[in-house]
């Protein structure tokens, strides 16, 4: 049974809500944005979010992005401009393990796998 998609869309609470999710220490796939393509992407991620995996969709990105930039990253740092970034995967220890720049569903499982084995 896949876990439901977690949607964070309130600009006033997005950071605290996101921190609360981070503190639950799951393997996260965080989609940045709510365009149709990104929403489909988030739903695909939710389908793969079994067991300790969680799929999260966040808006507004500009509010959350500085918080993400503060997290350590395993494979390259986040760019300053969030425009090209579609999603990130985050390990239970809050390390960003994968940075995705497209909406290819075949990248979801590898991103989860990197996060949960970090």
């Amino acid at each position, binding site marked *: *049974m896949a876990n439901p998609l977690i949607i964070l869309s309130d600009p006033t609470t997005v950071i605290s809500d996101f921190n609360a999710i981070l503190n639950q*220490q799951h*393997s996260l796939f965080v989609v940045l944005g709510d365009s149709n393509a990104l929403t489909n992407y988030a739903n695909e991620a939710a*389908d793969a979010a*079994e*067991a*300790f*995996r969680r799929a999260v969709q966040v808006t507004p990105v500009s509010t959350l992005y500085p918080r993400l930039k503060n997290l350590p990253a395993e*494979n390259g740092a986040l760019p300053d401009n969030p425009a090209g970034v579609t999603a990130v995967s985050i390990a*239970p220890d809050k390390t960003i393990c994968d940075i995705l720049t497209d909406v290819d569903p*075949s990248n979801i*499982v*590898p991103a989860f*796998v*990197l996060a*949960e*084995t*970090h």
Partner: protein
Amino acid sequence: MGTLLTVAFSCKTPKVATGRPPRPEVPHNGELLSIQEVDGSGDTIPLKPNYRVVDPNSTLLVTLDNSALAGKLAGSELSPEITARLSKLKEMLQAEQQAIQNVTEAIQSYNKDPKSLDWSALMQKQHDFVRLIILDKDALKIYKSLLPANSSITVQYQTLFKTAAAIVDQIQAQVTQEAKTNGVYVQLGAWVGNGGSQTPVHIPGFDDYTPQPAYTVERFQYVLTDEQKNELNSIAALAQNANKSGLTAALKTTIKNDSSLLKALDSVPSVKVALKLKSQLETLLKTTDTAFNALKATAEDSYNAIKDFCDFITATTHSLKMTTDTSAQQLLLDINNDVGELSSKIQDLETTLKSNATTIASTANRAGDAAINQIKVIAGTFGSLTDSLKSDLASVGNNARDLLSVLLTGQHIAQASYDFTEKVKQLSIDQVPRQAVINLELAGKRSEGDLVTVKVATGKPNAPITEQALVQYHLYFCSLYARTATGFLFVNQAPIFKTTNNSAFFRYSASYSILLKGFWKGAEGSRTHLVYHTLWTPGLGVNFASLSFNPNGATELGIGGVFTILQDFVQIGYGVNTFSGKGYIFFGFRVPVGSFSFR
């Protein structure tokens, strides 16, 4: 595969399984060769890496693992980066079962207690494997292509290992292609023999040797060999002499008449040279020429050392030829001590003379012309003596080491080299037959204890060949077989351990036994325990003894049951005198008489 996926997905309780056909059993020797033995009964026994023995009449089926061969060639045919990657991927594949188990347990752990982070600890163990695939662009592409849609977490991880296997196959195919392009060839050969000589064995498809005529090592031997007949005659003579004059005197006679130690002492090459040098030094010490004054102390030291050595040889030889009252046990101990002392004395003498030779050479430079020639002669004799001493010492040392080696490993130290002749084919890597058949019955005359060696090597034009695998098995029967053995028996007739009419406690007797062997250990134990064959070799059977309890000296026949151990050196049993009907106990040994000695 489809079935497994369905089960894993629909039940959400995936089993620990790889989803691929099981890999073949880990082959022998660096994964390159796997060998199966087909014994005389037609039973097939896969030879595990710790197996050391095969039956002398078996056929060995040698399977060459081409992918393992490619792996071994990768180091020479590919870049170090690819070789290192291949090595890591192989490590990953070996850990597959454990990794999938970790993933399964992590899911179970999370489902049981979502707040515990035990799942994370289990998943982290896959950190390196995951990155080996996911962070490599080409590998990730393969992974995505192999990953089934809507797969469970377990299947997603299983697919990582499938990807690793696919990449390994790709690299190995690349190695094979490179090797073929570079003219790499493979040779496989086998030899049978002992430490001293090796005979190549024909392997169809791998060489052009002519098969030897079929020869079967006799499994059930009930009749004494010619050598054993000679032994029996010698033992009979010893027993007769012992019954008449006592055991010590009989042993003395044997040592005097046919002792290898006496022969060795008589032919120590250094003794002749030592006597010559002793004579030269005597002359030197007697001279009044002042040119030699500086040499006299050194010459005297050398003279005394040589005299001590020669005296020891003379005294030992003399003592062995003399009849004494020494007990039999003491006599054997004395012989053992003499051999040890001989070795020690040779070593001491060589050290002393080498040092003195240096002194003499340096003194000669300061001596007058008249003395130089005489000193040169002496220095030359010094040189030849130290050389012959070295040779003697090496001989004594080698014999001792070889004896130990045979006892401990059944293998002589002197190893023949296993070189391929021009008759062994150089096969292109893609032409190598997958299996080699080594029929030991067509390997010529063999004996128990011989060694069969299988070697695989690779080479390429203008480069030396590289040995890739070498496996050796000793040839011994691993199931029931029969042998005969002779023995010198100490016999005590009923009533046991009581003497009558002041007669001797033991009578001595020559005997032979027909023994069943190979029953103590099963198929695996007899193939893994070499000392079972080289040292213990227990036997159980029937003993026939020529008794001499009758006061008139007539020989009587005794028949009994016997248990032997330590290559039949120790024999113990109970028998019945067929003439008097009385029972007797006996124990016996193989003793150093006649044509044989301690081995």
